[in-house]
């Protein structure tokens, strides 16, 4: 909405300004889209290499140098596999499931600030598709509707294992969403804003948020693992009990979309964690570097990207280290440990702010 109003506002002033505005936003969207896809593709390669590292194997090394063309080979394989739709499934919902999973995974990247603003083409360029003033809530809503892809896909397959996977996914999502939301509440209390762009700017030349919110960060990280269905929380697809869980009946690229959506979710949640708690694109000693303009933006993006890669690696590291939870342990952790801890975190944050006198 804001972007449309802004474009119309520019249109009234100057026609060519509006064209550049729309063009820049379009290029930015395309860039984020391609970045998410590339990172997701190479995450599959990274995952196999990391697991190989953990288990003292070599991992994929046949396709290209160091197996670097493996994602391409996997993609071609996915597209050329035979496509099966079970006879007793609901056809439309069966196709809708993976589409929603992919769509919601890609949507969250909109509010992430990729680099600091620069001056170019006669206007201020922000490397953030949209800085809505409720950015955190937007991410939260996208996460909360992301479960529909899994639920619809699992139900439409008309298979009891898929259904069980879908049920597990929904109860897990709802349980961990609450602790996640309460962890963010403490961060919002500290920052005083819901806009992602502003939270990142606040961390400029200051301590990063994780220093003020260590417990909140830990809760958020655990909940991010649960929301992306990654091990040790991958019960919806738990292959030892449920074959493949919600994607048991899927084949070809529809399966690919489900798996791909998981990696994009991982990428986006890594970006959100780095932006919220680790200073986003801010460089350490940024003022002392004396850089400005496009080069600074490039450097900032590079540093942000490094943080994201680190968190993606953390996701994989944990997956190949910690065994899967049992279902009751999962709900126990969510409701009886993380939720009280998150409320405690809010109380502590409030008390510290009160003692500091930052409560007006």
């Amino acid at each position: 909405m804001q972007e449309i109003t802004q474009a119309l506002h520019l249109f009234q002033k100057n026609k060519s300004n509006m064209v550049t505005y729309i063009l820049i936003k379009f290029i930015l969207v395309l860039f984020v889209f391609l970045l998410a896809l590339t990172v997701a593709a190479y995450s599959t390669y990274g995952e196999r290499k990391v697991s190989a590292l953990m288990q003292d194997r070599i991992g994929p090394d046949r396709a290209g140098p160091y197996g670097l063309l493996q994602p391409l080979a996997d993609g071609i394989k996915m597209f050329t596999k035979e496509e099966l739709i079970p006879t007793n499934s609901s056809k439309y919902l069966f196709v809708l499931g993976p589409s929603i999973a992919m769509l919601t995974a890609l949507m969250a990247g909109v509010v992430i600030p990729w680099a600091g603003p620069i001056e170019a083409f006669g206007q201020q360029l922000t490397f953030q598709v949209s800085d809505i003033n409720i950015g955190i809530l937007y991410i939260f809503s996208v996460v909360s509707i992301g479960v529909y892809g899994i639920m619809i896909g699992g139900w439409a397959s008309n298979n009891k294992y898929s259904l069980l996977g879908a049920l597990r996914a929904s109860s897990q999502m709802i349980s961990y969403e609450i602790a996640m939301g309460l962890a963010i509440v403490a961060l919002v209390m500290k920052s005083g804003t819901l806009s992602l762009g502003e939270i990142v700017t606040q961390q400029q030349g200051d301590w990063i948020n994780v220093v003020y919110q260590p417990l909140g960060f830990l809760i958020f990280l655990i909940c991010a693992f649960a929301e992306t269905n990654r091990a040790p929380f991958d019960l919806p697809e738990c292959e030892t009990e449920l074959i493949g869980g919600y994607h048991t009946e899927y084949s070809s690229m529809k399966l690919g979309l489900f798996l791909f959506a998981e990696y994009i979710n991982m990428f986006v949640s890594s970006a959100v964690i780095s932006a919220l708690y680790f200073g986003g694109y801010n460089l350490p000693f940024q003022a002392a570097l004396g850089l400005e303009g496009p080069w600074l933006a490039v450097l900032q993006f590079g540093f942000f990207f490094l943080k994201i890669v680190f968190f993606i690696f953390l996701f994989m590291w944990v997956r190949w280290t910690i065994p899967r939870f049992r279902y009751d342990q999962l709900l126990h952790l969510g409701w009886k440990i993380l939720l009280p801890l998150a409320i405690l975190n809010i109380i502590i944050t409030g008390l510290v702010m009160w003692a500091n006198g930052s409560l007006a």
Partner: protein
Amino acid sequence: MVTEMMFYFLSFVAILSAIMMISTKNPVHSILYLIVTFFAIAGHYFLLNAQFLGMVHIIVYAGAIMVLFLYVIMMLNLNEDAEPVKSKYQKISATVSGGIFMLVLVASLRSAEVSLEKTRNTDIGLVNQLGKVLFNDYLLPFELSSILLLSAMIGAVFLSKK
């Protein structure tokens, strides 16, 4: 111009999916149409510049309550054949009472003042304005309702510990 077109489009989607939600036989399809309705209504909030309300509407209704509904329906495995058979008298009485309710709604909306233009350009729906109003003018009801929700949550955790 753009907002007007979006208003009609969203209203069309909301009403159509609401009708589909009632008329479809399959409970899971019903829920999915209801989710579409909620999204259309959230779109109306965005048109009125009430971004916070719209987002919270999506998070709470489409993201949490409907997931629970879907969860229960999937767990009970309700299908078209599981629909209970209702007698003819029940159907007639339901139609009559529904019609009376519609009459009341139409009658009350006819006399209502259309104030869409007035509310469109205010900033009251933005999160900092809303926070100021909630914590200054309506502090007591706000805190009371939050305590109500908190006690429900604590109660649920406590019950599960038994």
